[in-house]
């Protein structure tokens, strides 16, 4: 993207709308939070929340604090660890279930019974299973993305237009060639969608897991991640920091999804032409 293009995008009507909406949101929040001082009457809900100005001051103080960034780092590490493992195991598993009827028949019922179990219900069990707190958090994160990825890959690979396969077959393609050059690219859009959805779930799960398990290997403190950061801010009574943690997760999740979208776009160039 060149500079001119970037500028026109930055100052586009859509970007302007977005900025105005965020500004209005902040004003309502600020007024609501300061409603007791301003009107002598405390607005429901908003009146109990720290105002954004205080949140930004508190955030400003944290920017230079390495332990705040350590929380980011730890959460990212857990998310990408669990997520990568889910992709490495989930994509081949989904594809294999799609192409092998026997395996599908044997494994799918178990899969469908396990799938509705919320990843967070696994937290106590996984603390028992795994030798370290860190591994149990990673495992729960993995589960968050795993089922979504498998289901999407399986659905994508099973709904391939039969005529693509027949056309390839009649042109003399081998099974391996059909898998590599037909099944795989035909499933790619579903892999991208499954990953994007899985990534969202991973962030939900990692934060909750960090809160429940008390911040992983460090037993809290620096290595706790953003979930533990929020929890300890709550315990410590620093309400501004709770909001800082929440916004941080929002930003982190957004960038993770955006990264996946960009990667997905590079992998499926033909979809852009529609």
């Amino acid at each position, binding site marked *: 993207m060149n500079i001119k293009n970037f500028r026109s995008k930055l100052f586009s009507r859509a970007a302007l709308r977005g900025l105005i909406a965020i500004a209005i949101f902040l004003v309502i929040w600020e007024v609501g939070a300061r409603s007791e001082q301003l009107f002598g009457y405390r607005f429901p809900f908003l009146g109990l929340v720290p105002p954004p100005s205080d949140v930004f001051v508190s955030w400003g103080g944290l920017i230079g604090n390495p332990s705040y960034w350590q929380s980011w780092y730890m959460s990212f590490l857990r998310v990408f660890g669990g997520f990568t493992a889910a992709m490495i195991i989930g994509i081949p598993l989904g594809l294999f279930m799609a192409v092998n009827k026997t395996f599908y028949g044997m494994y799918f019922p178990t899969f469908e019974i396990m799938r509705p179990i919320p990843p967070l219900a696994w937290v106590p069990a996984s603390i028992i299973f795994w030798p370290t707190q860190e591994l149990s958090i990673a495992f729960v994160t993995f589960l968050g993305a795993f089922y979504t990825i498998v289901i999407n890959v399986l659905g994508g690979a099973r709904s391939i237009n039969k*005529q*693509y396969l027949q056309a*390839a077959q*009649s*042109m*003399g*393609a081998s099974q391996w060639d059909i898998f590599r050059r037909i099944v795989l690219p035909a499933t790619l859009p579903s892999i991208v969608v499954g990953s994007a959805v899985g990534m969202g779930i991973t962030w939900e799960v990692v934060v909750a897991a960090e809160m429940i398990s008390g911040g992983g290997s460090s037993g809290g403190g620096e290595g706790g991640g953003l979930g533990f950061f929020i929890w300890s801010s709550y315990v410590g009574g620093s309400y501004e920091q709770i909001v800082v943690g929440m916004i941080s997760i929002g930003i982190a999740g957004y960038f993770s999804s955006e990264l996946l979208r960009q990667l997905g776009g590079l992998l499926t160039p033909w979809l852009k032409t529609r």
Partner: protein
Amino acid sequence: MSTELKDDSTANADSREQFSSEIVASNVYKSYGAGPFAKEVVVDCSFTIESNKLTVMIGPSGCGKSTLIQLIAGFETADSGSITLNGKPITGPGKDRLVLFQESALFPWMTTYDNIMYGPRARGEDTKESTDLAEFLLNKVGLEAFRDKYPQQLSGGMQRRAELARAMINKPEIMILDEPFRGLDNMSKELMWEYYANIYEEDRNTNFFVTTDIDEAIFLADRLLIMTNLPTSTRAVIEIDIPRPRTIEGVVNSPRANEIKKEVMTLLHEEAMKSFSGGSKAAADFLDAYSKRVD
């Protein structure tokens, strides 16, 4: 479009061979499902797709023509009876019989050029000879400017031509086309008829073309197979003795073509009526009386 066909500079790259291949179907039965839900689609169906002729099969829509294509292509097997290619039974798909499907089966994730090169690459024949032939065919179907476009970026007619090129690069003995021009607008359709007929006339390899469109059938066919309503079997065979090369105008003005059209329409009308009434005697009687009253 037809001018592009007479490009002699690259013509030597096209080493298309002439084959003689005949397909004979005898007493073929095919049904789907089992037990009380079984549905007979093809019953005691026999016909010959003669060597070096363009055989067109026409019949009411949903009459099982596509099933016959699945059987001839080798994607499915008949319950009983036999289908042979040059005397040998067909046991599975092969590059000697290529199918152009109703809807475009171009791979959406490959560019026009990669789609055309799919067959040679899949067989490990990514040679100079293949790439030369791909270039020649791109030129022949008039898609040089679209070689790096994805199928979604091509018009319906272009997709059909790209698919023809993708099939022709494999030098199939027999081309099987399942209503390939369905869904195109009338203008592109007529252009595609002339275009496809031209390609056929170049080498006159065996072609098997399935359609529901009477004008299309008469314009293209050397031999016309008229099928019955479900379950499918052969109702009549008509030799179309209109000289080639044909033009749309020539066929429209040909008394012989109109004579054939009338004959075909009468036969198809009877079959369509059976299909329309869905086996109900009352409905069939009503339709029969009604059609006579209109005449």
